[in-house]
């Protein structure tokens, strides 16, 4: 039983590390607008929808800490903003989007992308002010352009991932009750 917990912890760490490496090195090097894709957020949304709040929060913590360790942005920015985005998404998912359709996922993705974008900038503002530095993230100009690009690209990624998860598992398939 104990070994099962250790094995689970190692799997969690390995998956989190894989996503951090992809998000930090692979995605930013892609051509065109592809670097704006938020792989980590889409992954967290699927974990939230399929496994629940606790695993999503655990992944947000692990991915956030690893991203902060590798990044030169204020430490804590990724961890805090991912935590806020996961919580906000959980509220929307359980209060309004109670079915697991593609449209719900798309609405959740748009909402989560905007919440993450806002929380990153707010957390950056707070942490940078405490350190006596200028903000590192843009609100206007490139910031808005990046938000628009993220909304489109994250939605496309969610559509593709949704079809893939549907193909591989039954978790997102509707259940019909026969009389």
């Amino acid at each position, binding site marked *: 039983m104990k070994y099962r917990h250790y094995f689970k912890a190692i799997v969690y760490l390995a998956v989190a590390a894989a996503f951090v490496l992809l998000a930090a090195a692979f995605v930013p090097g892609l051509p065109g607008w592809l670097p704006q894709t938020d792989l980590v957020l889409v992954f967290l949304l699927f974990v939230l929808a399929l496994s629940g*709040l606790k695993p999503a929060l655990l992944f947000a913590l692990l991915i956030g800490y690893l991203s902060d360790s590798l990044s030169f942005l204020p430490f804590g920015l990724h961890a805090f903003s991912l935590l806020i985005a996961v919580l906000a998404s959980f509220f929307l998912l359980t209060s309004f989007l109670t079915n697991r359709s593609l449209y719900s996922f798309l609405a959740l993705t748009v909402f989560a992308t905007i919440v993450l974008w806002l929380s990153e900038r707010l957390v950056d503002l707070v942490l940078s002010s405490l350190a006596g530095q200028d903000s590192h993230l843009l609100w206007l100009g490139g910031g808005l352009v990046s938000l628009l690009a993220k909304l489109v690209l994250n939605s496309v990624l969610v559509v593709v991932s949704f079809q893939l998860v549907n193909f591989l598992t039954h978790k997102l398939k509707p259940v019909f009750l026969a009389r």
Partner: protein
Amino acid sequence: MKKVKWKRVGYFGAVIGLLVFFHYLNLLDPLESRLQRLANPALARLHGFAAGASRLYSQQTDRRDLQTVVAELEGQVNRLLEENANLKSLEEENERLRGFLDFAAPAPYRRLMLNVVGKSDLGQANQSITLDRGSQDGLRPGLAIVSQDGIIVGKITKTKEHSAEACLVTSNDCQFAAAIQNQDRTVGLVRGDLGLTVKMELIPQSEQIKSGMTVVSSGLEQSVPRGLVIGRVEEAVRENNELWQAARIASLAKLDNLSIVAALVP
């Protein structure tokens, strides 16, 4: 409707808060340093794959312009051959004169090859790249970063033990002491402009600036050697009633697909 267990959320928030607190007390430095060292090879490999894909994409989109580019480059090569020959004879004369005057040559800079392992997001205030070596390898803020052709790409702004961040020459926060290779030997400060180009401002109107002139580092900065190519003047921007003019400079380095750069360490 599922309810949020606020206690659990509080625990996660507290853990993150503690991690941030310990980080700023430098208690997590050994762990973070080890993580960076472990991650660097994987980051370099992944970024290399992505940069390769990006280069392939650029090649496909640029194919139709190749003939024009080739013709332009042939003309440039001929002009550069002539310039090179003149410069070689000047170099020999310089060495002879240094010998006569017993003038010590400036200490050479060591080139430290670095892999680019990350790039900044569009939504960040300043364009930057992340490099796979840091303070343990002798890097410090202020050092110049050059491409494989020896053209200035940027400057190191922050370092950790095993990684460093460098601003790109087109970034707003990147400045170099520069000189334009014209008759007046105009010196000034060049700074990145909106992530697209480089600008030198506050140039007296009396100085002659023309399109095509080469802009190099002036050597007035402690950590940046003299003579490194920054770019070429695209346009001299002047208003008749103004005291000053500005020069818009195009960087000669390809900043989109960087995978290997070098730091010039004194």
